[in-house]
């Protein structure tokens, strides 16, 4: 028997380490420590209901486990073979408990390729990776010529998962054709999209899959050095990578003459330091060289002149994680999954106002509706769906009418968003779209490297215009100005950051024009989020005169006699919301 415990960042924050200790103690108390193995894995994906504990071989999936539940799990489930019912997931529609994850709505539509091992193996034990075909693909590659391997990747149709969607095989081919005394394989683990944690989860849950793929890439292009550029904000992923690199060296899977092939390859790590633009590959390379992470003009592409001026192939974590499986199962197997021009699956970090926040992997071509309603379990607290944002700060906000769009690189671009690296944020009726655009612009302004004027100054102006609108001081002309300025920034910025930064503005204007108009014409924020446009009012019909609100108002602007309807002085009100939170009769609302 095995007990698997999620050791992902989300579950760790909810004390999953203590659950492990308690389980081990409880097993010891029963003298079962040799029969039952307790294994810490990477993220299971269902972070919303974490911490997750799974029992094998019967696949029982326990959710929201607390450290104090450990004894009961051991005494009931392990010793007596009875499931602990209260820790099982309850299907919200059928109101039945589900014990096997396979039958949960959250997992049913998922196909796990990049995440194949996350939540199944102990990432700190190379043996577990090897027992699931790990490093088999590398061995297989040594029996082929580098060009054969490149051809498999080309034929599979794999496209870069870092955002751009460039065909991976083609990129490898370019790098392999450039002759040089030294070449490099770089793994981009900078994952800058705020609210996305795909790459992090792969590195935490299955670091060897990335190391193996980097070695395969090195073999195809003739590089003997790999570098992983990872955010310093990801301490657990860094730790697990270090362990994995150490073990791979020990097993002769990294280092000199790997598996007797005569091929040498080793991997080292470089740390980012909190600059989103360093995810852009030229900036990333400068950062690796110890410089400020400012992008430079392409060409030259990294494949010609990258790290230390040598041919360099940069791929994203998730792109790499797909590679070993493609080698093992074949190009045809992979290209049978997905849509015409986007093959395989995509991992998304599903977050926001959705019931099942978590990490999911779906075949390309799955619709947004399926993701949000079937996998995501719909909108939180029974609210109304309003928008879904993909592509992070470079992407756009899509609406109800896009829900049946099959997700792939080209479809998302066509509707004014983009695939991006995999952030997917769901918003409901309480989210103001102008504020959302402002939120992203605030991010861009902070993260622009400042090298070119349209991005450095233009985005600031965009932010100011949006701020003016949310303050209720905007005009119709400002909306036109936003559009024109956006077009200029897109056309004249040097790197991808500036070229895409107006997307959140343009897509919200396009899809939520009425909301912009309501802000400028009627000075109203329908979502009730823009403070300057809100007024707190008491409904005299509902107010019973309990005085609670008046006693809690920090500026004493609510008046009224006991048992009589109260009134808010809107001039003095500072819109803190305390009264509305306190009123037990829902008599206070925002208008």
């Amino acid at each position, binding site marked *: 028997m095995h007990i698997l415990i999620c050791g992902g*960042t*989300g579950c*760790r*924050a*909810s004390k999953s380490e203590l659950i492990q200790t308690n389980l081990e103690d409880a097993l010891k108390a029963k003298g079962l420590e040799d029969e039952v193995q307790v294994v810490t894995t990477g993220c299971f994906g269902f*972070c*919303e209901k*974490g911490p997750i504990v799974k029992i094998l071989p019967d696949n029982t999936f326990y959710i929201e486990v607390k450290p104090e539940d450990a004894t009961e799990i051991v005494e009931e489930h392990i010793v007596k073979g009875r499931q602990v019912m209260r820790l099982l997931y309850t299907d919200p529609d059928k109101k039945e408990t589900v014990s096997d994850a396979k039958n949960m709505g959250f997992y049913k539509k998922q196909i796990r390729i990049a995440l194949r091992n996350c939540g199944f193996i102990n990432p700190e034990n190379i043996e577990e990776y090897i027992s699931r075909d790990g490093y088999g693909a590398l061995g297989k590659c040594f029996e082929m010529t580098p060009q054969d391997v490149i051809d498999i990747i080309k034929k599979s149709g794999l496209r870069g998962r870092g955002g751009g969607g460039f065909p991976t095989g083609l990129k490898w081919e370019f790098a392999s054709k450039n002759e040089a005394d030294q070449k490099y394989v770089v793994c981009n683990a900078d994952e*800058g*999209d*705020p*609210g*996305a*944690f795909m790459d*992090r*989860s792969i590195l935490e849950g299955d670091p060897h899959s990335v190391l193996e793929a980097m070695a395969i890439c090195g073999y195809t292009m003739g590089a003997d050095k790999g570098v992983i550029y990872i955010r*310093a*904000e*990801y301490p657990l992923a860094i730790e697990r990578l270090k362990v994995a690199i150490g073990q791979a060296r020990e097993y002769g899977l990294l280092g000199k003459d790997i598996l007797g092939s005569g091929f040498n390859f080793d991997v080292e790590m*470089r*740390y*980012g*330091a*909190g*600059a*989103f633009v360093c995810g852009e590959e030229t900036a990333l390379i400068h*950062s690796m*060289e*110890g*410089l*400020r*992470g400012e992008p430079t003009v392409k060409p030259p592409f990294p494949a010609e002149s990258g790290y230390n001026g040598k041919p360099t192939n940069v791929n994203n974590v998730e792109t790499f994680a797909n590679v070993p499986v493609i080698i093992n199962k074949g190009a045809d197997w992979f290209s049978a999954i997905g849509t015409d021009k986007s093959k395989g699956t995509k991992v998304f*970090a599903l*977050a*926001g*106002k959705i019931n099942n*926040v*978590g990490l999911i992997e779906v075949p390309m071509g799955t619709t947004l509706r399926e993701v949000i309603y079937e996998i995501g379990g719909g909108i939180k607290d029974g609210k109304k769906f309003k928008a879904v*944002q993909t592509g*992070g700060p470079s992407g756009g906000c899509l609406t109800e009418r896009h829900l049946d769009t099959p997700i792939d690189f080209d479809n998302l671009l066509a509707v004014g968003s983009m695939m991006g690296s995999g*952030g997917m*944020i769901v*918003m409901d009726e309480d*989210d103001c779209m102008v504020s*959302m655009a402002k*939120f*992203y612009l605030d*991010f861009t302004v*902070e993260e622009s*490297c400042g090298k070119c004027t349209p991005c450095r100054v233009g985005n600031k102006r965009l932010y100011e215009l949006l701020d003016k609108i949310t303050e209720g001081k905007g005009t119709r002309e400002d909306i036109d100005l936003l559009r024109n300025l956006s077009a200029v920034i897109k056309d004249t910025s040097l790197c991808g950051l500036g070229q895409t930064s107006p997307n959140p503005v343009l897509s919200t204007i396009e899809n939520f024009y009425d909301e912009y108009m309501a802000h400028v014409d009627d000075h109203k924020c329908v979502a009730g989020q823009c403070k300057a446009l809100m007024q707190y009012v008491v409904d005299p019909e509902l107010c019973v005169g309990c005085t609670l609100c008046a006693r809690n108002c920090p500026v004493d602007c609510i008046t009224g006699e006991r048992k009589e309807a109260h009134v808010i002085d809107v001039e003095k009100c500072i819109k803190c919301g305390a009264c509305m939170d306190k009123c037990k009769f829902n008599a206070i609302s925002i208008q």
Partner: protein
Amino acid sequence: MAKIKLAKDKVEKLIEICKSFNNEGSELINVLHKAQGTFGYLPAEVQEVIARELGVSVAHVYGVVTFYSFFTMVPKGEFPISICMGTACYVRGAEKVLEEFKKQLKVPIGETTEDGKFSISCLRCVGACGLAPVVTIGERTYGRVSAGDVADILKEYRN
């Protein structure tokens, strides 16, 4: 060059860190990470020693330190509070949580309370979006934080 006012043992520690990276200028970011890990922040004097040891200009070191938001030139509080302002946390109300921290501690973002106990900063996604809104204090992570929880959280660290 400006006179270096750092205590001798600290200078030695820095020299040692630089040496562990073979005094290579291209290792600057790694050196800065190590130095900040050791001293908690990177004041001008520390940057001067690093520049000298790696054989690069102080301006270059300063340029790199100020480019990356992870590096700081001011000391953080004993309990550094970071409020996640990633998108997932933002849409689940992180702004209100931030306001509450600012209100209770009476310091703006990026500053430390007078007693040196707390400092407030924002970060973008710690990867625990399932628990949004997320706040970290030192090594600890708090999930599903609401403005109402702030006082209780601070209480844990106050005495």
